[in-house]
């Protein structure tokens, strides 16, 4: 099965995307993971990135490519992506947990410190995490940024949260 048949990428497919930093780059710094691979006519991520880490170029249907060495993990591309296909990953902690930033457009918003269910790309619950921060800003245009601590080994598996309430 592939994303075209059941709607979601497998981990192997994500790792092969030009928008996915190498495992080494991911361990070195907080970075964006761009899960976009289908030649859509779209480029707001490129414009959003002031660090020049994301390239779409011409034609506009090019799949976004990341230069992880330039990415400072600021997350602006994540809130500007109309497809909600970008996630920020911080694997630099040393407590066995990773911090994941997710674009979130549901109400109610989770609260800081709240324990939430973690879902994978297929929507299956794979564990539990803790919300560290929920950010909203005019610049984000009503897409909230939810920061959640997840078990390190699930950092590339978890892509959504569900509230227990």
């Amino acid at each position, binding site marked *: 099965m592939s994303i075209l048949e059941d709607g979601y990428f497998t981990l192997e497919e994500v790792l092969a995307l030009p928008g996915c930093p190498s495992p080494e780059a991911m361990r070195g710094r907080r970075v964006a993971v761009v899960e976009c691979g289908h030649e859509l*006519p779209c480029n707001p991520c490129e*414009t959003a990135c002031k660090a020049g880490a994301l390239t779409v170029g011409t034609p506009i249907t090019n799949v976004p490519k990341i230069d992880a060495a330039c990415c400072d993990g600021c997350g602006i591309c994540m809130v500007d992506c109309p497809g909600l296909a970008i996630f920020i990953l911080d694997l630099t902690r040393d407590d066995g947990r990773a911090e994941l930033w997710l674009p979130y457009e549901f*109400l109610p918003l989770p609260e800081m410190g709240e324990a939430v269910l973690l879902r994978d790309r*297929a*929507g299956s619950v794979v564990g539990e995490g803790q919300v560290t921060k929920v950010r909203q800003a005019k610049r984000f245009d009503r897409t909230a940024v939810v920061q959640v601590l997840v078990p390190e080994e699930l950092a590339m598996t978890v892509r*959504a949260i569900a509230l227990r309430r």
Partner: protein
Amino acid sequence: MKQAEIVVIGAGPAGLSAAAAAAQAGAQVLVIDENAEPGGQLFKQIHKFFGASEHRAGQRGVDIGHELLEEVEGLGVEVVLDASVWGIYDGSTVAVASQEYSWRVKADRIVLATGATENGLSFRGWTLPGVMGAGCAQTMMNVHRVLPGQRVVMVGSGNVGLIVAYQLLQAGAEVVAVVDALPRVGGYPVHAAKIARAGVPIYTSYSVKEADGDECVEKVTIWRVDDRWQGVPGSEIELDADTVTLAVGLSPMAELAWVAGCRFLHIPELGGHVPVHSAYMETTVPGIYVAGDVSGVEEASCAMEEGRLAGLWAASAAGRLSVAAAVAAAAPHEASLARLRSGPFGAAARGGKLAMDGRRDEAWGQTLTRGGA
């Protein structure tokens, strides 16, 4: 009789863009729409649009709608609402029915921007309350603030189906399944990924077999379809659902082009019968232009660019803009359209418009059963 240099029929993304472009060129523009509010479907589009950054990509449809409306109002365009255009005579007299009276307007140029209508799908139980178009569900949620149902089966995985499924989740409904008879997700994979990770199962190569219930939908049965589109007995899955939303395509709403005598071609990639039009968006009836879904079903971002082109060329034909100035003004919109239609997801529109160009002679030779000329 009322007079207008350019009458635009339909105040959606295409119509408002046409009105803005024509008014900017100095034309006197009248926009007529049968709805109580302008904006067409734009104000229901609460998601961020795709496209190029310099053309409003990343902005939400509803905000683009407000901006367009402000632009049109600032240019002094007259917008008449709650008024249905029911006829076009001699290519220039527009017949309108308002709530309490009928009136006519003599137009030098006409832009048809009437949009599209949702396709239906018949299955056993399809007339039960709870079966509705995806656009209907979207109107209930995003305009009237009414949740159409608690447990929804979305039929169709094109962008409309995927986006409305996401909006149903945002509104608090549970989307039990998205089904599509095709073997592949039809819309942008990133839209599919958004609902998949929220826990919505997507069944490709599945169709609705039947909906059951005494007075409304209580259960929906889906089944796998084989490569000849036949349901496979034994593959049935019963879903506990109270709502079925249909997102199985759109057809151009082209009745006014028919009555005006425009020639048509049947181009499946563009949604069915479309009025043949030139690169200037002019139909085969001189002075009548088309833009947006009525000229071939595409995304709203394309409708806005086509609207700009139709408005520019109508204003130019009305003597408000030299051809050279119109060519220059049209160039960025043509470039933007080409970008929006590029890549695999633009192939249908790209191919459809090309097919129309290639079959232009056939359109001239056709025998019309409706309309004039």
